[in-house]
């Protein structure tokens, strides 16, 4: 994104007290082939993303599978090394600091995973899972760690008496609470929650969403909330970024995005997401996109969305629209924005 776009962000008040600043981050996964195992192509999972996350906000990141949202989340935490670009955390460039300094920084940035089954070690007791981060960072002596672990279990609504139990003895929702307690152990400032509720039942999803909201208030956390469920994103987020094929195609306040979506992809996504109200479902005009998401190995020229877009013009095939400020107050990457 060009400098003027960053200025536009500044006008939106994004720059004051930025916690995480993502600048032109690219993550390419090489595809090796041939006799010599040379790189024959790249999967462009994240292809030039600029994003600022303010202290205390919940930034929702939506998109369909394969759009690069999880990869972006991991690249921010340096769990995947970005191919290019910078990630600043409280002004410090995570892509340029020493491994040791990064390790210290990691205590401030934690992750909550989608699958509460595979993200917990089945051979560890719950107590050990939650206190492991404290041990890794030598926080306190063993009695203090034990106290902290019990405290964390209570905070996320688990009975500390269960500390000797193993993950398989818990339900999906309870396991997600264990994962949340572990993420909170080091008093982080920033949490990337990658689809934290999509593996849970409806009645349990609401419990976990409420818990995440309470914790944010209690510990002044900042979240990057990654999900494909638009209603859940709207419910938790102050701002929303919509991703398509490695690019952010729309970014703005939750209200602007949901009331006045500008990018055709956002419009289609909103119209495709089912609403639990038969009257709304009966009367709404649904935009059914044709075809599938193109391959990120060989993305379309110009706007990545043009092959599926009903408004596409010749220019969309040639020039990639920049992410710029639209009249409705959000940023969108489209030559012909609006409904």
């Amino acid at each position: 994104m060009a400098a003027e776009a960053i200025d536009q962000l500044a006008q939106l008040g994004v720059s004051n007290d930025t916690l995480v600043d993502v600048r032109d981050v690219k993550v390419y996964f090489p595809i090796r082939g041939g006799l010599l195992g040379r790189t024959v192509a790249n999967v462009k999972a994240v292809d030039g993303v600029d994003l600022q996350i303010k202290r205390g906000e919940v930034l929702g990141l939506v998109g369909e599978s394969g759009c690069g949202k999880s990869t972006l989340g991991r690249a921010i935490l340096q769990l995947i090394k970005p191919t290019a670009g910078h990630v600043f955390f409280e002004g410090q460039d995570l892509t340029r600091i020493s491994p040791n300094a990064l390790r210290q920084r990691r205590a401030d940035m934690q992750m909550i995973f989608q699958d509460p089954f595979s993200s917990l070690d089945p051979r560890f007791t719950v107590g050990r899972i939650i206190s492991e981060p404290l041990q890794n960072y030598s926080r306190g002596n063993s009695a203090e760690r034990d106290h902290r672990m019990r405290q964390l279990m209570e905070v996320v609504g688990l009975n500390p008496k269960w500390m000797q139990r193993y993950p398989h003895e818990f339900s999906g929702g309870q396991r997600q609470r264990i994962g949340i307690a572990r993420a909170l152990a080091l008093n982080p400032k920033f949490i990337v929650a990658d689809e934290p509720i999509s593996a849970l039942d409806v009645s349990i999803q609401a419990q976990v969403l409420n818990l995440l909201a309470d914790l944010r208030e209690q510990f002044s956390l900042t979240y990057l909330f990654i999900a494909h469920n638009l209603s859940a994103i709207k419910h938790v987020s102050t701002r929303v970024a919509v991703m398509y094929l490695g690019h952010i195609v729309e970014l703005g306040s939750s209200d602007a995005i949901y009331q006045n979506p500008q990018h055709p992809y956002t419009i289609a996504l909103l119209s495709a997401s089912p609403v639990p109200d038969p009257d709304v479902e009966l009367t709404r005009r649904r935009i059914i996109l044709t075809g599938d998401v193109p391959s990120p190995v060989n993305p379309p020229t110009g706007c990545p969305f043009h092959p599926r877009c009903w408004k596409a013009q010749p220019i969309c095939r040639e020039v990639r629209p920049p992410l710029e400020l639209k009249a409705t107050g959000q940023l969108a990457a489209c030559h012909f924005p609006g409904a």
Partner: protein
Amino acid sequence: MAEKLLDVQNLRTHFFTRSGVVKAVEDVSFSLEEGETLGVVGESGCGKSVTALSVMRLVDQPGKIVGGSILFRGQDVLEMDQGELHDLRGGKISMIFQDPMTSLNPVLTIGFQIAEAVKAHLKLDEKAAWNRAAEMLDRVRIPEARRRLDHYPHEFSGGMRQRVMIAIALSCNPQILVADEPTTALDVTIQAQVLELMKGLAQEFRTATMLITHDLGVVAGTCDRVNVMYAGRVVESAPTRTIFKTPAHPYTQALLQAIPRPDSLPGARLAAIGGQPPNLIDLPPGCPFAPRCRKAQPRCRQELPPLETKGPDQKAACFYPY
């Protein structure tokens, strides 16, 4: 009213496991009429899938249908011999599963897999069966259908595979289509494509559909009637609009309140349902929802409320509805 297409009465399917008897489906009754779309909603483990499998007698060891009756056009499915069952499955009633990757055979071409079903049920010869396969692929809007017949499942995307499953399921003109979470593994834009396709085809072929899902949004847009299941039982049954506008059972109400809606206020607290669904081996006496119910009275913990008529065309199993 004409004869019911499918009439299930007091169905009970239990699983005999080492740790005890799991009453997966307990006293479930419902019926389907021609062209109707019935939604079955509930959380994981509530018995929706086992109900569907029972209808086709596909329940495997250690599970067993221990009671009730399943009448398909007046004929009892539970009394059918192997030959009759063969005609029923895939011919008169066909099924679409959640995961299109594991339900297609990876080493056979798509054409072979559709033609296989057609040959078995419509008694067509090889050539006619492949023509039918091409026609079906075209119907589910897969471009260049004839060329795609020679492709293998891995050459299709998730949404296309699910459309292939629909093509197989509808290739023999079934009277009932059982769709078990057909769009859960798909992205929203692809989900919209598949649901639209299913709706269109069901109307065209007058197929009755039993749509199993946990997504109330999907139900609102596609179903005529809804059965809400909890802990192996139907706790509420009503037309879709009634379920959403005036739900009678506290569980239905709680489910509707627990989901964030696109038009709800951001940041508002969701009305979560406390606790966990009960263990089906060791069900509490009385109403299975009572331990999580906000309105539960002493009576609810002792007596099981029967599924009774509470309003016009609305049945619920609750002593204190609305």
